[in-house]
């Protein structure tokens, strides 16, 4: 019998592993019958958990009552996020965060039609610029991070089948790293392969772990496959080998941490990505082109 209310608890902890364990436990309690989610025991909500809960709440067929939001959660526009649709709206909403270590959770349009792509480009450009200002990123790092995050977002646009994607960000200046988190609650990698209609045969991909393995190896459902399928592998390489960061990719019950793939034990709908980038010291010689095919 599921409980009608859920009160997650998380205290200050920047370790991704701890955050993933909390996420895993939360999947036991999050269900469509929830009436109340009380966040008063979340004394710290890192971007991974903020985006996990925000995307679940926004994409749920039944919106539970939300209570216990502290000042930080309200400041990051949790759980309903911000979705500015014009340059002036972006400036109005984001400029106040230039002196902070985070941005509000961004809910962006995944549409490929009409004004969707242009609005998304404009919004993400502002978000990236805000992140650059907050972290004082040099051009070589900014380009590399733009490359990675763009590839991952384009995968969401092409494959998720959903209306919205989500972005969260936190800069831990004393720890010397930043987290950019992305999420959608769409088809996930397995769903993308299963929904594929075309000449290629993906029938051998029957579970989430096989789907992740295939995606990393570049087996794309997009047309012209031999020229596609670079996104995950290249983003991971730039991050882990180029920047010394950590790449976390969760879809269904498949959890990829850098090159290690494991069964997470519970299924998370869609995809959640964490890109953790150390930025205590910037390497002037770093060139992202050294890490791409």
């Amino acid at each position, binding site marked *: 019998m599921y409980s009608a209310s859920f009160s997650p608890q998380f205290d200050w902890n920047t370790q991704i592993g701890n955050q993933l364990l909390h996420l895993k436990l939360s999947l036991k309690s999050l269900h469509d019958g929830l009436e109340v989610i009380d966040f008063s025991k979340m004394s710290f909500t890192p971007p991974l958990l903020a985006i996990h809960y925000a995307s679940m709440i926004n994409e749920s067929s039944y919106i539970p009552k939300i209570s216990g939001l502290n000042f930080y959660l309200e400041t990051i526009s949790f759980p309903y996020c911000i979705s500015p649709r014009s340059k002036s709206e972006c400036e109005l909403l984001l400029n106040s965060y230039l002196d902070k270590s985070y941005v509000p959770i961004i809910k962006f349009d995944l549409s490929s039609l009409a004004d969707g*792509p242009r609005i998304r*480009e404009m919004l993400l450009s502002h978000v990236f610029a805000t992140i650059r200002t907050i972290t004082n990123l040099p051009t070589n790092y900014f380009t590399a991070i*733009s490359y990675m995050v763009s590839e991952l977002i384009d995968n969401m*646009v092409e494959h998720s089948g959903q209306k919205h994607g989500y972005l969260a960000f936190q800069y831990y200046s004393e720890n010397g790293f930043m987290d950019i988190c992305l999420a959608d609650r769409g088809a996930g990698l397995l769903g993308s392969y299963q929904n594929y209609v075309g000449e290629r045969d993906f029938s051998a991909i029957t579970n989430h772990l096989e789907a992740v393995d295939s995606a990393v190896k570049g087996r794309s459902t997009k047309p012209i496959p031999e020229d596609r399928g670079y996104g995950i*592998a290249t983003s991971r390489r730039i991050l882990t080998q180029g920047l010394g960061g950590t790449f976390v990719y969760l879809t269904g019950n498949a959890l990829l941490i850098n090159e290690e793939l494991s069964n997470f034990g519970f299924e998370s709908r869609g995809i959640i990505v964490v890109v953790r980038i150390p930025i205590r010291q910037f390497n002037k010689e770093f060139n992202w082109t050294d890490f791409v095919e």
Partner: protein
Amino acid sequence: MDMRNTKFIDFKELDSIKSRSAIRSFFEFSADIDAVVVDFAKITFLSRTAAHEMLVLQNNLSSQGMDISFLNVSASVNAMLELVKNSLGKEKKVGFRFVKLLTFEDDKKYEDYLLQL
């Protein structure tokens, strides 16, 4: 060149293009266009997928007899276009794509693994 049938694309107010669909959205025009001029003056970043889409469109339009030219391409945008051009038709590198499947005896061991992060 008959200027009346030339489509000028300058990506409006955008300063970066990060997706295929964004590129495609600028290439919706009528069949009587016989030339396209793409001005990258405002574009400081072009993602790999956007660059690939740009080159695919360029190739498709050229094969239809349409003249397409790029203007004011910055060094960084050119680097991305060249990267994609040079990777076309090449095999993907195995070393980029290694995945190690881990299995654990029990939940406690899995928890210990996650807590190392």
